[in-house]
């Protein structure tokens, strides 16, 4: 579904830091939302976690660079990185172009259930995106 002009597929989970997760059993595929990539601007570089690294929900796990600006992305889930999308390190703009498809970031074996995730259809989520849009002037 579309919220404030940005695409948010119904079958994914979302956090408050503009990440998405597709959870299948104890493995999550994660990435940046359409709003998240718009907020970042044209992404020139991304530094991804190495497979085997443990990441923690709410803590930085990767970095992005756009407009000489380095930002750090907080993880949407906790667990062990199984695989990363190496294409992103070569051509980071695929996050901008296809955030839910070719621009996926990592697959993670979950440790515990992630907390506080929302669906696109939750009224709370729509309110969050509206507030974020206003805050960041998007």
């Amino acid at each position, binding site marked *: 579904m579309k919220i404030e002009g940005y695409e948010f597929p119904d079958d994914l989970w979302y956090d408050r830091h503009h990440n998405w997760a597709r959870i299948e059993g104890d493995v999550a595929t994660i990435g940046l939302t359409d709003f998240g990539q718009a*907020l970042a601007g044209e992404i020139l570089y991304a530094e991804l976690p190495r497979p085997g690294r443990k990441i923690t929900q709410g803590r930085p796990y990767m970095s992005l660079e756009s*407009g000489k600006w*380095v930002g750090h992305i907080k993880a949407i889930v906790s667990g062990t990185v199984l695989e990363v999308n190496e294409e992103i390190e070569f051509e980071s703009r695929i996050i901008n172009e296809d955030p839910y498809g070719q621009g996926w970031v990592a697959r993670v074996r979950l440790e515990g259930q992630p907390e506080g995730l929302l669906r696109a259809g939750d009224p709370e989520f729509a309110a969050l995106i509206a507030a974020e849009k206003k805050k960041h*002037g998007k």
Partner: protein
Amino acid sequence: MNLYDLGHVPWLDSQLIYHALPRLGLEGLILLAPKEPYVCIGYHQDVEQEVDLSYCRRQGIPVFRREVGGGAVYLDGQQLFYQLVLRRDRPLALGDKASLYRRLLAPVVQTYRDLGVDARYKPVNDIITAEGRKISGNGAAEIADHLVLVGNLIADFDYETMVRVLRLPDEKFRDKVFASLRENLTTLKRELGRIPPWETMTATLIRNFETLLGPLTPTPLPPAVREKAAELAAFYTTTDWLHKARRRPHKGRRVKIAEGVEVVRRVHKAPGGLIRATVEVRQGRIESAEISGDFFFYPAEKLAALEDHLAGVALEDAEEAIAAFYRAHAVESPGMTPRDLALALGAG
């Protein structure tokens, strides 16, 4: 807000202090310049692809990886650096990148104007003169819930050493980068015919930043910042940190000169042979192009004419322009189409 007006400091301090401040939860505006020249690469850069490390070693020029984005730069005492550290939750630090840069660089633009240069902000992070030449480099990072903006007033610039410290494919390409830098990057000295006194530059910057930040209180650097900087030095000066990012080599070499201006060397393998192209691109248009390789091109003397023909052509129109040139001059290049040449130039 605290002002740390530190003058010329040891080169490593010129990087470590702004990395230390946010980690201690401290805001502030730092003004300084390095006593010794050094090379500084962006957070995500691969130092081995960007910098001629053996040249730097021979010349005793240190190389540092910063947490801020952007490209490899040669920094010295002729550049006055402002380093602004703001809590991320301040209204001043909210907004998208372009609006933040515009807001935070307004004092720098005004400083150039007060010093006599008709400067303006150019999205996303440049400050340019009325003639469109870059006169300040800027970058940013999010460090420990703080926003860090770093940039410089360029009093004078050592163009020769800048192009010498970069790792470039050959001397011809180096000459091209040098010429483009000279054309597209300027300094206070070139604009005014003189370098304003250091005190004037710092006082003007402070006055203009106060318009944005409120009163700035001159403050000695707290011992805790020195201690944190020393602690960070133990990590930031390691080989592991410097060589942290390894990237797959791109097919070619790209040197960004300013926003929208770059010099690119590409290699493209066509069925008829290898094409090497060096192109200077400005706002999506070819400024100049040099094409060579082991392909066949008849009449051979028309290759230089084709290079001239491409000046001013938009990259996206390059293939059509080359095809038109082929038709007009009955060019034949077995195994190499206008599309191959356009790809070597970076179109498509």
